[in-house]
């Protein structure tokens, strides 16, 4: 399943996309530890697969919570995307 967490507001679109089919096979779940804001969490989805999701409390705050990892925060690559070996994570902005 392709899960798009986030929102669109007057300033733009802020979605973190997770391909949860790739999470099912992932043994490390490295994204959970890599995110300095602890936005990723492991959950059981509606079809009883253990996948990674964005924490519900963060879904409406992605623009602010992810800001520190964007290029202006001094990062070259996003820690979550770099850590995700299956390549399941992408950002819309």
């Amino acid at each position, binding site marked *: *399943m*392709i*899960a*798009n967490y986030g*929102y*669109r*507001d007057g300033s733009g*679109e802020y*979605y973190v996309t997770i391909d949860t089919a790739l999470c099912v096979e992932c043994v490390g779940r490295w994204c959970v530890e890599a995110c300095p804001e602890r936005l990723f969490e492991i959950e059981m989805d*509606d*079809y009883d697969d253990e996948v990674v999701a964005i924490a519900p409390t963060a879904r*409406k705050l992605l623009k602010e919570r992810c800001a520190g990892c964007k290029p202006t925060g001094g990062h070259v690559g996003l820690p979550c995307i770099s850590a995700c070996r299956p390549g399941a994570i992408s950002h819309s902005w």
Partner: protein
Amino acid sequence: MTKETQEFWRWSEKNWRAPGLDWRDASVVAAGIDVGSVSSQAVILVDGELFAYHSTRTGSNSPDSAKRTLAGAMEGTGMTLDDVNHIVGTGYGRVNVPFANRAITEIACHARGANFMIGPTVRTILDMGGQDCKVIRCDEKGKVQNFIMNDKCAAGTGRGMEVIADTLGVSVEDIGRRSFEIDEEPAPVSNVCTVFAKSEATALLKVGWSINRVLAAYCAAMAERVAGLIDRLGMEPDFFITGGIAKNAGVVVRIERLVGRRAVPLPEDTNFDPQIAGALGAALFADALYRKEQRVAAAR
């Protein structure tokens, strides 16, 4: 009721029961309860067949709303909570359904409900809820493949439409029809924010717009907002709209114009209601989960 005290936002609550179907003959009775931000629905299935449903307004207390809507669906059937084998809660209040065996997201439930209502050809579902909007892509079995939602603000949602109904003094159920009683389609209003919609609507009336023209502009703005979500996820036919706004032709037709495709209508020979899709999906999950439990128990 005077014009000043009339509740223009109030939509019709609904109660339906299958004629000639007796739950006492069934081997599995399953229920789905969708506690949404604005409305709550309960659906009861007997042996996988639609038996009864009830739709009501969500109150300030989610467990009470869940109890009230399930009681509404059971009313006059002689059925009690003890007669239901399995219950699944869904919607934003799903974790607050006190008697549910499991909570499942409304994303999965709307996809499954739409698949049951229309059939395996449905691939894209637009759920226009009370305070959010979702686009869901699913497979031929109604399993979610891809989804996107916008629940950061209530703009372009059912609650927004209720506010416009009250502001303009037009029954929420007449908005769709009246939005077409215009000479020329106006540009969408610039702001669908539920808070600012009131001031924008009154400002347009002041400069001479008719009420119907304002309604058309507001419906067009709502359609534009959700069409953006559909664009982002991509559209695969068949396309079906669920949620209360699915009953508002003023928004539905304008969405169809923007996406260039007609939404699949409900078959005329059914008693489905697009507003019960989430609860129906939850009831289908409940039915399947109970049967799975029974199989596992029998195999032990």
